[in-house]
Structures are given as C-alpha cells and as structure tokens.
C-alpha cells in the first residue's frame, strides 16, 4: 500500500498534492519514499533524471555497458539504465546524491577529490558508486580487484581512480567514525 507521505511523480516534479493512483510503484530513493505513476517499464535512470531531476546518474550507453548510470539497489551496484521501475517496487535505492553531502563527504568522494580524479567528470558519479560497492565487498582491494571495475572513462582517468580507491580504503580503515558506513 502506498504510504500517506510518499510523493507521486507529479508531486516530485511539482509539489502540488495529487491523489495517489492505484497501481503506483513505491520505491525509496536516498531515504525518501516515492510513488511512480508513469510507465512501469521506464528504466530507473530516466525516472531519476526526467521525473525526479536527480541528474547525477548519467546516460552513457543505455545498454548496461559503460556504467555511467551506476546506482545502488539494496546496497549493491546496479546499472540503472536497464532496470525498469516496476522491478524495483519496495526496494531502496541510493544515488550519487545520497551517499554524501558537500559538508559530509563519503570517504570515496573525499579520496576522489584528494587525487583530483575527474577530467570531464561525466562518468565519475558512476565510477564512485562502483568504487563504494567494491570497497564494501573488499575493504583492502588488490590490483586485480580494482581491475574488475568495468566502468568506462573516455578521458582516461583510470590510474587516478586506482589511486583514489586505495586512498579511500585507507580512509575507511583509519577513520573512527567512517562516513563510508553510510549507503
């Protein structure tokens, strides 16, 4: 059942209250509950971008190859361009906007800044979401583990991504109150 405080597509786009529709899809995004009332087969990426205007997740290929659209679904990295909203009913999604704030960065975001990783920056949200996921699975990733990151960066920032993942692993290991505990 839709919860009374959840936002429909129309409310998310414009705050005016709209009566909830039967068949609406309920999903939690960055801790907030939403009701999707549009096309159920709309991929999560377009729901995030065109409906919620959460534009941090990027379109790069639309077929799950490049990873620019990577988000976390129930805490695991997924490529949102291929995930229909209908398959996500009741699930919890975290996007780049939800893993850390400007004044409370996730360790991976912090490391990304310290290593000055971004060039054009377009793929970086996806890269960061993939790296957060990797570090949850492997606290001290090996070279081979890092090489399993398959997100494409057309600018060629891979060597700095490598360094930033290692730095983030250190930050997470030494932090007493890790920001990385989030997500």
């Amino acid at each position, binding site marked *: 059942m839709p919860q009374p405080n959840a936002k429909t597509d129309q409310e998310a786009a414009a705050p005016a209250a709209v009566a909830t529709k039967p068949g609406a899809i309920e999903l939690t995004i960055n801790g907030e509950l939403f009701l999707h009332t549009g096309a159920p087969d709309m991929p999560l990426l377009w729901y995030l971008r065109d409906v919620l205007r959460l534009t941090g997740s990027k*379109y790069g290929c639309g077929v799950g190859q*490049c990873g620019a659209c990577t988000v976390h679904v129930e805490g695991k990295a997924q490529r949102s361009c291929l995930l229909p909203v209908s398959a996500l009913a009741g699930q919890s999604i975290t996007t780049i906007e939800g893993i850390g704030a400007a004044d409370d960065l996730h360790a991976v975001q912090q490391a990304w800044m310290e290593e000055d990783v971004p060039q*054009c920056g*377009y793929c970086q949200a996806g890269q960061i979401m993939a790296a957060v996921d990797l570090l949850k699975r492997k606290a001290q990733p090996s070279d081979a583990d890092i090489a399993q990151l*398959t997100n494409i960066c057309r600018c060629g920032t891979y060597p700095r991504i490598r360094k930033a993942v290692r730095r983030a692993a250190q930050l997470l290991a030494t932090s007493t109150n890790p920001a990385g505990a989030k997500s």
Partner: protein
Amino acid sequence: MSGINRRQFISVMLSAGGALIVGMRAAGAAFKPTVPIDMLGEPLTSLGAFVRIERNNRIVIGARGCEIGQGVMTSLPMLIAEELDADWARVRVEQLPYGYEIGPDGPTNRYGAQGAGGSTSIPDGWKDLRQVGAVARWLLLEAAAQHWQLPQDRLKTESSHVLHPDGTRMPYAELVERAAAILPPAEAVALKTPEQYRVIGKPARTVDALAIVTGKAAFGIDSYMGGALTAVMLRCPYLDGSVDSIDDSDTRKIAGVRDVFALPGPVLGSSLDTNLAAGVVVLADNTWAALKGRAALKVSWKQGPWAEESSAKLEAQATEALKGAGIAVRVEGDLDKARKAAKRTLEAKYQVPFLAHATMEPPHALIKIEPDRALFIGALQSPSGASRVIADLTGLAREKIEIRMTRAGGGFGRRLKNDYVAEAVMIAKKAGAPVKLMWSRDDDLRHDFYRPFGVHQLTATLDKKNQLTGFGHLCAATPVNYRNAGMKDEAAGIGCLEPDDFPAGLLPNLDKRFFALESGMPRGWWRAPLHTFHAFAVQSFIDEIAVETKQDAVALRLALLGEARELDYKGHGGPKFDTGRLAAVLTRCAEAIDWKRKRSDGRGVGIACHFTFGGYAAHAFEVSVDGRDLRIHRAICVIDVGRVVNPLGVDAMMMGGTIDGISTALNLAITVKEGQVVQGSFGDYAVGRMAQMPHEVEVIQIASEKEPAGAGEMGIPSVAPALANAIYAATTVRVRRLPILPELNRLL
C-alpha cells in the same frame, strides 16, 4: 558619480591586428550583454567582465572557455588570479556564457576566445587574461592609493589584500566599490615576472571537483526547461540517404509521444554547416517515451549515393590512388634520384581507420526559440559556430541568441561540429515549442564526423653508411575537408598530411604527397587530428629503419634532429619547430624507461616522439605478449609544453592522453559496409577499461621558460607508434595497421 558610470566595466579584447586593447564601456547603454546570475552580484562589486569581489573578500572569477575535461575552468581563471594577486584557495569560479555582442566597432566577443580546439585556450589566455587580472589589481591599488593618500608604487598586494607600507592589510572587498569607479589605465599594465608567481606553476585541483563527486555538476544533458519536449531522432543509416516512407502508427499509440515528423538531411554537395542526416523525429514528454516511440517506428529508407561504400573498397581505392601523382604537399630535392643512388631503399605501408569521438556524454541540445530571441543551453566546443548555425536557421540576429555553455562530458573535437545544434533548431521550429534533443550511444557512433581513414606509404633511401638521404610520405586519405563552409578553399591535404612535420627539413630529399579518396563518411577533427596517424606512420617507420640498419632507434632520431635549432613550421603550432626540444623529451624518455638495458624476459621496449601544436612529447612503453594477451608493464610520457600553468592539470592531460592513446590504438576502428557504419555500441567500439590499462602513467614535465602551449592534445600522438614499436621489440611482429590488437592476433 552616476549609476551608469559606477557600473562601468572593462572589456579586454584582441584587436584585428592582435594588439591588446583594454577598453571601457557603460553597461546597459548600447547593448545588454548576457551576464550569468552568479557574476551579477551587486553592481558595485564587479571589476570588468571577469572579476567580482564579494563583501566577505571572496573573489569570483569568470571562466570563459568550454570545459570539456581539459581543465580550462581551472587553468584560465588561474591566469587572472595570478595577476590579480587573489587568494586562489578562496576564489570561486563561474562559467561565463558566450559573449557575442555588437560594440561601437561592430560585432565582438566581450570575453575573447571561447572555443575549445587545437589546444589554444592557454596560449590565448596567456595573451589577454593575465592583463584582465592585472588591470583589476591596478584599479584596486589605485583605490587604496586614493584612500591612504599614497602613491601606488608604495603599496603592494598579497592574497586579496592591499598592503600599506606600515603593514596594514586592507581586503580587496573594502576597496572594490571605489575601484569600480576609477577609469582603467589607457596602456597595458605591466605583468608579473615569473619569480613573483604564486598561482601559475602551482598544482591546482579541478575547481568543479566537489560538484562532480556529489553529482551536482550540470552537464548539457542535465539541462531541462519548463514546456520543453524531448526529441530523439531515427537517422537514416545510409550515408546521405533519405526517408522513403514512415509508418508511425505504433509510435503514436505510446503514452507520452506528442508528435512524429520527418526531418530532411543536408543538401548534397553543399558546404553548409548544418545537420548531418535525414531522419524521423519523435517528440515526447520524456526521454523514455521518446525512445520507446522511436523503437516502434517503421521507416523505409532511400539508400542515397554511397550505398556501395565499404571499408574494403576504400582500401582498394587507396591502393589505386597511390599509383598516381597526387598533390605535392612538400617536395624538396629529388627522391627518385636519391632512390637510384641509394645503397638501400626501405618501404612500408601503414593504415589507420576511421575513428568516432564517443564522448561519454553524447550530443545534446536544449533550445527555446521565440519570435525575437533564442536561448541555447548545452555542451559545446565552438559557441561561435553554434551562434552562427542558430542565426542561419532562425533568421535571428546573433546578439539576440543567448548561449549558455555547460560542462561537457568530453569533447575530443566532436563538438566542434554543431550539427546537433542545427538539428535541435530545425526540430524546435517545427514543434513550435522548446526542445531538448537527446542522442543515444548508437546515434553517436553511427553519425559522427570521423577521424579520416588513410593509407600512408613511406619510403627511406639510405647511403652506404646507412645515413638517410631521402624520405617519402604518400598519404591517401579521406580529406577532413567535408561540408565545412569555413574550409571550402583549404588545400585537400589539410588535416591529413602536415608539410613540415619531422623529418621534413632534416634531409636533402623529401617527397610528401596527398591523394584524396572519395567517401560518403563524414569527417572531422579528432583530438590531435592528423598528428595521431602522422606520428603512427612516421615514428613506426623510423623504428623499422633502425631495426633494418641495426642502428639504435633513439640515436637514429637524435642524429636526424641534429643540433638544437628552430625550423620553420607553417602548420598550427608553428611558426617554429625546435629540434632541441624534441630531442630533449626523447632523451629524457629513453633514460626513464632505461632504454639501453637489454630485456631477456620476453619484454620489449618501444619509444616515439612527436611535435603537436607547440608541444613536444615522447612516449615509451615496456610490454610483453603472452599468447593473445598484451600487457603494458610501464608507460612513460615526457612532455614539454613550455611554462606550465597548472602542473596537476598537465599531468592529468598527459595521463589521460596516454590512456586514450592506448585505448584507441589497441581497440578502436569505425568501419563501413554497404553504405552504413557498422559499429553502434561500446560492445563493438570497445573503449578501453581499467583492466587493459597500465596501473600508472609516469608523466615527466620538462621545466621550461618558453611561452606556454596548450596540453589537451600533445599527450596522444606518440602513443600508438611507441606501443607498436614495443610490441615489435617483444615479439618481432610489426603492426602496421590500426587498431593493434586485431592486427596482432592476425599476425601472430
């Protein structure tokens, strides 16, 4: 003082003759330039078009360039901050829009050069943006001099403060109101000497990094507008083909689809800069509805004039063309005579494929057209070109067209073409509504302006001492001059064969000729355009000569370069080419890879060097080939771009250029079959991923006092030949055709 006078601002521009003019204009008098909200603030806090000082002494600097990942949003404001003596740690940078306006002397750009191409942003900014900072600082000093009743020369500046001789520090913010009312000096202000630099030459991180890592940075695709419809287009897959018939009945049934209509392609044979292909437009409420609508279209196409074109036929055409006389690009001495007199003649043919740009952010355009004005928001490399395209297609005067450049998800030359801007304008006019045009990845790969395809036939003549006496470079390629109004009078070889490239001018007999191939494939500028394939052919061939004549490949190059001197270089990046600077990066690179050490563990080392757009680069790789698995153990890039403005940025460009070079050389080719582009995804156009890449690129920057060159393109041309040469050293297999991996697998 009247309000208008108080709002005087300085504009700095280059006159037609190149002289620096620091002018004064009254805002709001003759024209109303577009100023971004963040640059507005209170009128009393602005010092010219680029600088604003907030009450809390934070300095806001406008970034005029198109940020495509090359770092101009950081490096160009650094030039202003340096001469302004601003505290860089507290500077905030804001993107400026396109600055076209009608001044007293006709059309001008209030911000100067804004395009991104040819690695010119830093050389251009070096000429005028330092003066912007220096004039603003002069005004603040003058304001302090008036306040303290002291001559200017007794005052100093430091970290956004003016210093009184007694040590009192006054923040710029307390002086800016008075400074804004002072007339700037008529003459150019003296600039700092290098030992006074506090910003230039110091590593600075990307100013937008926080916005990028938190997902807040706005790219073109992140722009939305109330009332805008989303457009996607099904473009004709046949080169210069057209729409025959459309069945849109299923498309129109899809919820959210608003309209479907055909859009004509460009007029065949025209040199107009316009849209690229005919097709069918789907207009919808959102991207997903538009994409679903497009997938449901049933369209039949007229195949057009190139339906028979294929990569195989182009190769055959090149072979045939090379038998002709071609167009002489640079011919000296007599290569035929040298061939007859030679003890030995070596020949080799190299082939390079078409390449797509594959920017991570595909083309996108958001446009709103009204009867008397237009607004464009998106990622560009040539805002002036976009402005002309919009003016041509709408009939609006250019000063009525507002262009807001966003960060671009990559450029690599793709956005020097404004076909997607033209498309969006055509669609918006037909739709009668603002339009957000989206391109999908397959649109992008199948409808690009590709790096030219070419076959390069190289010849070397050698005397009995194995000295080079002659060098021939025949290039049969699809000219880059393709439907570009600005290029219609250019030589056919431009963008394919550079007359003065190494080793021109270094041996007595030279024969460089161009052979134009006919093709329907659109061509354009791709990062370090001709240099990528030029360097591959020449630097591979030099390595072959060294192997064949049992000479050291570094020593051979150094002997050719000879003593350090400047040679004429007419192409972009000239007017001079310094043989000593190329020799220096090569020598340093050889040392860094330990060139002389014999490898016995199956590893091979390869090296190459090249001059691109005023920058000198050398690459060396240490590789091994195990079965079909190529491993890059070490990657070294040595670079001399003159004085370095942002060392961290130059390091990023060289690292990125090297990785881009590896990815492209190993994997990438666009091919054509039956008049259609074959590749359509990252599956068949496999941009390199982490696992294929060296863990590190060791970048070495040569300290230099020379005028700064740019850095966006120099890091790529010497990659492919150094890699192919390393593979030869490891395997004795010579790769003469790009991309490397399929060719290596064929040869092994």
